[in-house]
């Protein structure tokens, strides 16, 4: 029953701490227009729009699909608004892909964004509630104890996190759209950055960015554009409860199940050898080794060894986060979509300076909440 689905256009903004040169509408249009141009299409060619972002409270604009409908050419068309926490950029793309695969539409524009500078995201995340101690100090305070648990469990040495922080920032130097371009990044610079949530230092955490991402997805009979399409080989979402007895937050079952599902669809049995490039949601450096294990790129406890060996570096055998990743650009709502978008660019051969030669099959992953929401897709240059 399912139709083939292709990515035929991608677009993104220059991600920055503050995009005060554009409104929210201007921001999303910047990415959307670029995706349309890449697909060699105009607004009128689009059948439907699927938009995603993280909590509405970040910008103080409730259900922004209403305000943004005209800016995204959605007047007279269907527009859906997805919100699945930090994984939202990924799940938004998946909802758009389902509209194609189900045969309901032929061309769907999908957009995700965050304009964090318009409000105070840290405030929105730390709304005082009478029953929770106000201790968290943002997402880092939530994830740092989990990272400590991973370090204890795997016996990973301290410098692994710093290696990831450097590697992703070096990759970002290849990506003109990345927020952080730290030309002189090295291990010492990370080590000398301020300790925010011990064991996490400032440079091991993602920045706070304004930015948007967009893709045009199409059915097989509607493929167009300046680059060959990226074909969707598999897609999956998984959720588990936020807190429960015995929950493994270091290696969540939902992530393992989601990966197993998407691999089965794409015919992947050995991710490390079959996947050419991967863009994985790593907002804090230590999540690279953690997700290497969760996604089955190695045995449990060996993720940090893979990172240490350089396997995930740009010239490694499984380059991770060639765009610079979330550690280099984090427009929250769009961060998941940027992962999905980067792997589409890779298999389409349009990634420029951050292109991995011969990338033909790639994995994009996003996660959200307290690592209980996952969305993934596998795209390839060959038809599935």
């Amino acid at each position, binding site marked *: 029953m399912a139709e083939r689905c292709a990515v035929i256009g991608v677009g993104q903004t220059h991600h920055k701490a503050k995009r005060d040169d554009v409104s929210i509408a201007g921001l999303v249009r910047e990415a959307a227009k670029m995706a349309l141009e890449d697909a060699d299409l105009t607004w009128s060619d689009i059948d439907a729009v699927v938009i995603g972002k993280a909590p509405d409270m970040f910008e103080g604009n409730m259900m922004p699909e209403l305000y943004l409908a005209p800016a995204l050419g959605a007047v007279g068309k269907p527009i859906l608004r997805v919100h699945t926490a930090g994984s939202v950029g990924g799940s938004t793309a998946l909802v758009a892909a389902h509209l194609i695969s189900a045969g309901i539409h032929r061309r769907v524009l999908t957009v995700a964004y965050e304009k964090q500078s318009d409000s105070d995201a840290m405030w929105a995340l730390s709304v005082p509630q009478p*029953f929770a101690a106000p201790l968290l*100090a943002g997402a880092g305070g939530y994830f740092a104890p989990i990272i400590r648990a991973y370090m204890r469990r795997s016996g990973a040495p301290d410098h692994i996190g710093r290696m990831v922080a450097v590697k992703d920032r070096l990759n970002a130097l290849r990506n003109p759209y990345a927020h952080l371009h730290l030309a002189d990044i090295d291990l010492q610079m990370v080590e000398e950055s301020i300790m925010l949530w011990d064991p996490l230092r400032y440079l091991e955490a993602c920045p706070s960015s304004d930015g948007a991402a967009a893709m045009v997805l199409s059915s097989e009979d509607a493929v167009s554009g300046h680059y060959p399409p990226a074909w969707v080989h598999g897609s999956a979402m998984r959720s588990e409860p936020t807190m*429960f007895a015995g929950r493994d937050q270091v290696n969540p079952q939902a992530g393992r199940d989601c990966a197993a599902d998407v691999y089965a669809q794409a015919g992947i049995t050995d991710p490390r050898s079959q996947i050419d490039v991967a863009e994985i949601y790593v907002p804090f450096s230590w999540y690279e080794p953690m997700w290497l294990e969760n996604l089955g790129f190695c045995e449990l406890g060996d993720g940090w060894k893979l990172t240490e060996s350089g396997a995930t570096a740009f010239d490694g055998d499984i380059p991770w986060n060639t765009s610079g990743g979330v550690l280099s650009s984090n427009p929250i709502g769009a961060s998941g979509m940027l992962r999905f978008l980067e792997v589409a660019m890779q298999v389409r051969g349009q990634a420029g300076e951050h292109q991995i030669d011969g990338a033909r099959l790639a994995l994009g992953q996003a996660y959200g909440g307290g690592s209980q929401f996952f969305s993934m897709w596998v795209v390839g240059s060959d038809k599935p």
Partner: protein
Amino acid sequence: MTDQPSAGSGEPIGPVTMLATPIRLDFDFTPGVAQSRFLRGLERGTFLGQRCPTCHKVYVPSRGTCPTDGVATTEDVELAGTGTVTTYCVVNVPFAGQSIEIPYIAAQVLLDGANLSFMGLIQEIPADEVRMGMRVEAVWVAPDELTPSLASVRYFRPNGEPDADYDTYKEYL
């Protein structure tokens, strides 16, 4: 709105790039049946958890359902004020609304008898001496200051017991 001459001098004025429009919204908060019991427990200086009738795990505080079984939790379980630090971080970042001097320890504390840890503040020990497995006890406010809120728990502090064995809490990280 760019570079239009101003009415008076003829000098160009800059573009308007940002307008602050403060939003204030007030909300009531409904704790619900289960959390109300937990809060009433705090008012008496005790931690009240609830047991799932299906998997028998004890949640504190319970939000009224077992998160894995999706059934109502009804049986109250009174817990001791002692527990184990399963993991923690040292918060060194200032944020709006913060009331504690940084750096401080935000720890996951697994209360004895509970099956889920919750985040608590650790005090009365230098930050660099806190460790996973450390045994702690709750320090409550004075009896006449107890309220149905987590403000009744000032913080947790080491209770002097030897550290818990990693195997006893590794499932709760």
